[in-house]
């Protein structure tokens, strides 16, 4: 467990350091994530301590999100002023994006499979 947490912290640390050093616009934690992914691909497998740590961290994710989410208390005015725009953007935007992505990928996959049959 501790080894798993340590692995995550070290990868985040490396990512944050690289972001600072090269003045990258990408968040350090994301660089750390990409490095961990490459590390796992090269290593060809994960290890138990990492599996356990990831399981616990992702299980309690909402608890880590809550402190920032409570910040919504400072945004009631914005939400009230732009309620209609926000509602339309979320409802219509999500609906058409889902239609677009699902249909696009479905067409691409059936085209690919047709190619294979020929």
């Amino acid at each position: 467990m501790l080894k798993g947490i340590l692995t995550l912290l070290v990868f985040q640390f490396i990512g944050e350091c690289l972001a600072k050093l090269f003045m990258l616009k990408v968040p350090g934690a994301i660089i750390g994530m990409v490095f961990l992914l490459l590390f796992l691909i090269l290593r060809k497998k994960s290890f138990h301590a990492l599996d356990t740590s990831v399981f616990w961290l992702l299980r309690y994710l909402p608890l880590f999100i809550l402190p920032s989410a409570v910040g919504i208390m400072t945004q009631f005015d914005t939400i009230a002023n732009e309620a209609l725009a926000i509602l339309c953007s979320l409802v219509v935007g999500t609906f058409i994006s889902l239609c677009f992505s699902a249909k696009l990928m479905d067409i691409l996959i059936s085209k690919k499979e047709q190619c294979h049959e020929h």
Partner: protein
Amino acid sequence: MNTEALLSYVSSTPLTWLILTISAYKVGVFVYEKMGKNALFQPMIIALLLILPVVIYAKIPFQTYFQSLHFLHFFLGPATVALALPLYKNITYIKAYFVPITITLFVGGLFAILSAVGILYLFGASQATMLSMTTKSITTPIGIIVAQDIGAIVSLSIGFIAITGLLGVLFGNVVFKWLNIKSDAAKGFSLGLVAHALGTSSAVEISENAAAFAALAMGLSGVFTAILLPIAVHFL
């Protein structure tokens, strides 16, 4: 008895806010499970509805609350790194449909951002709201980190992400039936791409294959949005 000392201790110690936050979350999990794990009763949303009235009624500034719980917030970083593991476990699925995945990831991902921001623009919404909307389709830990990075309003972004996830779950099966989507890979991938973690959990109910492609889409869109969005915003 010194009630004044007691009150000032209670309102200033991180213990109060930690106990409140964890108990509210626990109640949230309880309600969610009692409601048959219906996506509308997300533990986080229930917890928020319980915490907000207390913090507002006690006249505690958000900064005070946030600073008391800063160490919880800190774990978002390691949790983001942790997302490499589910992505690694599903990465072999890329080989099956490399071209469809790459095209849908970039074209579909861009469409999700532009459609939402475009609608806000048509309504004449403020720039801060538009910026906070750009992260709506990526998973919350990455969304928070990116929102901080691009100068969006983090709590608005979280709200938009949560609502997008719920809507994705609600629309999913309706859209797939209506558009006659045949491939489970396409169903799962679009759910993960548009509706992140909530979409992925609803893809589990379609099939194992759909769930794998949803997890893949969520991971890939999280990474690429986090890399490309700050650069795009920088040049605006």
